[in-house]
């Protein structure tokens, strides 16, 4: 089933961490396995934020294999060595859990090459790279993940999130949403639905040099859009193209540094409720997600089949 939520403040910042938490908590019944946040935070915009994991959360009903925590430290050391070799300068590092880190760093070269090298280390996955994107995903509900990663104080302009019910792949962080739009900085995707031409598309995209980290069908959307943008398409063009390029049922959100978009498949099989005003757009799988941050009476609607919308901050 899965629940997705997103919001964008136009022309101002807000406490998007708490707002998205409230929206995702209201959708907990749609996906209790894992929760993910892609927050576009008020960072200084000069340095890259890289969030990565060196192992899986093996508790909370995880389908991952248990590992000794000492291997996490070894992998982290390998990442540090690789960063040095790549010429990246780490300005600040934070260990958030035994398996996940947040690095603030300076790096000026090609992100695709950078990501390939970092992810060549066993079990290391970059969750996101961006100058404002903070992508956090872990097992547990929205409140648990917010508390674990101290997201309540994050302010920013926009955010998308996901409450996952695992259907197509395991209960683990690598299959959790949002997915980073590798190798583009500040691109993230969340999806509700099933894609039926996953393997066909994956084979084609892998031949073009794109990378898949999981076997979750939703990751295809991020990779699909990233490949389109790599070839010069705008976000909106890529999203419109995806309506025919992706087969199955889906409603997905995609966010970039300064925009937020939604697309709904041509069967309109997956739910989405949308609230739009001059200074705020909020949307979610169910109205209760929007009501959790806007309790007063508002006008909302369901976008129609095959609809694509993009908003700027």
């Amino acid at each position, binding site marked *: 089933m899965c629940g997705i939520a997103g919001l964008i403040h136009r022309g101002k910042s807000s406490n998007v961490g708490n707002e998205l938490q409230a929206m995702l908590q209201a959708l907990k019944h749609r996906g209790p396995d894992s929760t993910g946040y892609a927050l576009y935070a008020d960072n200084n915009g000069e340095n890259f934020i890289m969030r990565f994991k060196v192992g899986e959360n093996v508790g909370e009903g995880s389908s991952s294999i248990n590992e000794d925590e000492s291997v996490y430290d070894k992998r982290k050391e390998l990442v540090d060595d690789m960063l040095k070799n790549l010429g990246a300068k780490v300005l600040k590092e934070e260990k958030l859990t035994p398996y996940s880190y947040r690095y603030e760093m300076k790096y000026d070269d090609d992100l695709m090459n950078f990501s390939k090298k970092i992810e060549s280390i066993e079990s290391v996955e970059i969750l996101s790279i961006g100058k404002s994107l903070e992508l956090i995903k872990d097992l547990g509900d929205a409140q648990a993940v917010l508390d674990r990663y101290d997201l309540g104080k994050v302010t920013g302009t926009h955010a998308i999130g996901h409450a996952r019910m695992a259907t197509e792949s395991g209960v683990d962080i690598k299959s959790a949403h949002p997915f980073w739009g590798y190798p583009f900085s500040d691109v993230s995707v969340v999806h509700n639905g099933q894609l039926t031409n996953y393997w066909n598309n994956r084979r084609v995209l892998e031949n073009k040099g794109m990378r898949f980290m999981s076997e979750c069908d939703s990751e295809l959307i991020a990779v699909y859009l990233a490949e389109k943008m790599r070839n010069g398409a705008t976000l909106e063009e890529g999203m419109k193209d995806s309506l025919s390029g992706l087969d199955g049922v889906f409603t997905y959100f995609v966010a970039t540094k300064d925009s937020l978009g939604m697309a709904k498949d041509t069967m*309109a099989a997956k739910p989405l409720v949308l609230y739009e005003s001059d200074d705020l757009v909020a949307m979610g799988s169910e109205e209760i997600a929007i009501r959790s941050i806007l309790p007063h009476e508002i006008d909302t*609607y369901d976008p129609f089949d095959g609809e694509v919308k993009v908003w700027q901050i």
Partner: protein
Amino acid sequence: MANIKSNENKTKAQSMGLHTEVLTGKTQQKFFNPDEAENFYYWGTYDVDFNKRIDLDVNDLDCKEANKKIDELMSQGYGTIVIKNPQGKHSLGVGILNKLNLIFEGSLGYFGVGSIDGPTVRINGRVGWSCAENMMAGKVVIEKNAGSCFGAAVRGGDLICKGSVGARTGIDQKGGTIIVGGDAGAFTGFMMQRGRIIILGNVGINLGDSMYDGTIYVGGKIGSFGSDAIESPMTKSDIDWIKRKLKVAEIGENFDISKMTKVVAGKKLWNYDALEPTEKKGAI
């Protein structure tokens, strides 16, 4: 298909024309029997007084508690209940089987006022997916928009949305009337079997796809016809009927009904009219 034999000893129900045959074999179908007094007792129904009015704030109640409270109030004879702060909660106002004026001051989530039989409902907000699913009788008016599967499997009554509705409106509809003041999404009237749908605005693709029977009237543009849905000429009785229904719905006062498109089943896929009565039962 079940075996069918004629029933020589007619019951009172059969003499009333309610059914003329009994099913044997593995089919376990029980017919309504007016000889049994308990069949005239409708569980969960109350005699209510429309002039007895009360407000109910459901902000701090979950849907089960809210529905239980509505039931309690009806048992106390309240005939007009105003629900405050529904806040998009799911499954509010379901299963009401008696006459009642039910007013929601706000929006509902999924499955709002489902399986109702009799009440008059006004929702001064929006409704989520599957509003009034399986409604038997009554009238439901939504002031704003509605989600997908609006009026799924409706069997009777009037279901009115003054705004726009999502996809698959009237899916599996078996009777009654669905009226939409705005636009409707894809697959409107999908697999509908009986009843009528009136859309004053535009509709999406695959209108009336795989419909068995029933009629859809569209005032705006049609994205595309679904398989086995065909256009049929509007008659004077269609126009008179729509005019009356729009008056009941309090919308489309100056709408030019004569320019609407009437869509019916081509009956190439499914043709109930060509079936014998016993075959119809087997098909259902």
